[in-house]
């Protein structure tokens, strides 16, 4: 029972981190209808900036710099690449993001090389014991930080004029433009926010118990894809539920691996994708995604 509680708590914490990434992914999709396959590379960029700077300027400024850096990379991608596309078919832009992803990941993995970079977080490998349940402090911090950020984001999304503009653009870009919403700014903002959220997620994907930032971190970030998809691409609620589902699944599959040895090692990395496929079989647009209606 204790193991189960620990695994569940770890899973929820991990899931909240995935939810952060998935939220950025969904925000970009809502604001611009672009499926951003370069999302994992934004995350890697944020993590890299934090990891490189923390020795010189301390952890918290480095984290801020990482968030700013990833936001800047996101905004740059939007400004330099996405905006240059003049066609109407947004599925084409998904392929452009794959090209961007190849570029960014190649550059970052080249810089990282075979090193494992520490991010210099203040928590280290300290653990917290509540009753009989032991959990790493980093996991608690992740849960709190992700919870705060997600709440803040949802409030902004609902109540500020920027949020209203973004929701209007998602509803109908043309009408929003006629109402004076500057679509360019909305999508620039969406990319920047997504980058910033991804940078925070990068921090919590690279702290204890994971060794640090390495080239395979972007693979871990890819678990946010099933998270976003199984919740529904155009739903912020879906991103949260999807993130938690993926996190808990991964944590349980890793934790009970020894009972499932016939399925091979490394099951935790696979489980989120299996869950995603099962959910998509039942609900092809994800749990909370709007079904696409077509007029012939």
């Amino acid at each position, binding site marked *: 029972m204790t193991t189960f509680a620990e695994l569940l708590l770890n899973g929820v914490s991990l899931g909240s981190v995935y939810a952060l990434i998935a939220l950025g992914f969904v925000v970009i999709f809502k604001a611009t209808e672009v499926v951003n396959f370069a999302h994992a590379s934004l995350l890697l960029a944020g993590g890299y900036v934090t990891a490189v700077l923390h020795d010189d300027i301390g952890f918290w400024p480095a984290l801020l710099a990482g968030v700013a850096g990833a936001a800047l990379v996101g905004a740059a991608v939007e400004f330099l690449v996405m905006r240059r596309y003049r066609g109407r078919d947004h599925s084409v832009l998904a392929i452009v993001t794959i090209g961007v992803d190849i570029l960014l990941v190649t550059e970052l993995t080249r810089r990282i090389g075979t090193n494992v970079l520490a991010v210099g977080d203040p928590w280290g490998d300290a653990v917290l014991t509540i009753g009989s349940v032991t959990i790493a402090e980093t996991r608690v911090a992740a849960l709190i930080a992700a919870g705060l950020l997600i709440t803040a984001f949802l409030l902004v999304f609902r109540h500020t004029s920027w949020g209203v503009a973004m929701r209007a653009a998602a509803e109908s870009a043309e009408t929003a433009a006629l109402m004076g919403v500057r679509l360019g700014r909305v999508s620039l903002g969406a990319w920047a926010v997504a980058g910033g959220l991804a940078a925070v997620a990068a921090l919590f994907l690279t702290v204890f118990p994971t060794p640090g930032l390495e080239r395979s971190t972007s693979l871990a970030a890819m678990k946010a894809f099933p998270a976003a998809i199984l919740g529904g691409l155009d739903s912020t609620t879906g991103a949260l539920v999807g993130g938690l589902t993926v996190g808990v699944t991964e944590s349980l599959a890793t934790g009970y691996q020894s009972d499932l040895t016939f399925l091979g090692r490394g099951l935790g990395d696979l489980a989120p*994708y299996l869950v995603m496929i099962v959910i998509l079989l039942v609900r*092809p647009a994800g749990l909370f995604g709007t079904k696409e209606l077509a007029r012939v």
Partner: protein
Amino acid sequence: MSDAPGTTVVAGRGAPPAKTALRPAWPPRPRTYLWIAGSVLLLALPFYLDRFWLQAGLFAMAAAIGAIGINMLTGSTGQLSMGHAFFLAVGAYGYCAFAGDGGDELTGLGLPTAVAAVLAVALAGLAGGLFSPIAGRLRGAYLGIATLALIFIGQHVLFNAHDLTGGFNGRDVPPLNILGFRFDDSELVVAAIPFGSAEKLWYAGLVLLAGCALFARGVLRGRPGRAMNVIRDHRIAAGVMGVPVARYRAAAFVLSSMYAGLAGVLLALVFQRTVPDYFGMVLSLEYLAMIVIGGLGSVAGAVVGAAFVSLLPQVLTRYSDALPLVAESGTGGVAPGEAARYLYGAAVVAVVLFLPGGLIRLVTRRTAPPKHPDKPTPGTPGPSGEER
């Protein structure tokens, strides 16, 4: 929409007599000479190139076969697949498992290698068929990310099913042997040139590639190709017009995975050893890059893109000391493989933004108008390049 395909089909059927009246069979078009010159060049190359370039060429051929397959799926039918590497792996490992003699403690059925190759391709098709019920329900990005799952499932199986795949270290590939003719390094001298495995496989690769390209062209130019394009452009309209959408989408998936399986077999034969690391995410993205750079929905585009993406790293490796900015791998600078990835990543972005239709569009745009001045060319890559 509804009458356009009908009229073009009629035009296509009625065209040949008119065409022959306009253009006598002799003298042949300049294009025919180009084809003949190209074929002769390709056939003669093993007599002049060293093993490095032959292997590079073979990689390109295998990649071209795989790219033709994924292009039928993603380019022509509009089903985004990010999991193509999985089907390549099924082909490669399927061949090893069917042909292996079980000597190195790995499962091997010890079948004749030619039979094993055919079975491996069929197995890849079966894998595609098994996935098609899922693929049939999903569209666009949902499908793309669902196929991403195939990569992770594939990697998991490859690393864990030791008996079948040899785990991390992979397994040896038995050389192909067709009716006693062995495609291995056993010496065979043709016109004073020793023929090793690369030279022999070169011709097998050429035959396979030509067959695959012609078959794909036939599929894409005929009724199925039209149906696939309508499904891509407007799924519901296709259904209304009587195209069995689900069956066509499933068939496209099966066919493209069989192409991938064949590419996998050929790659395995060239490598002579299969390792799981190769069949990862990067490979899938490479295949997507190939078809986008070459031209979505076109067979020639897939071949051009495959040649570009798979020859680039080899060229850069070979001439790394002569090129600025490219350092030898391991020295801390930009390694040739990375330089190649920068280039094709940038090429993907540039092609989509500035050259919709891919590199092949450059060629067709220049030569097509004088050939068919008055009617749109039926079944050429043109229409498919238009939207994307």
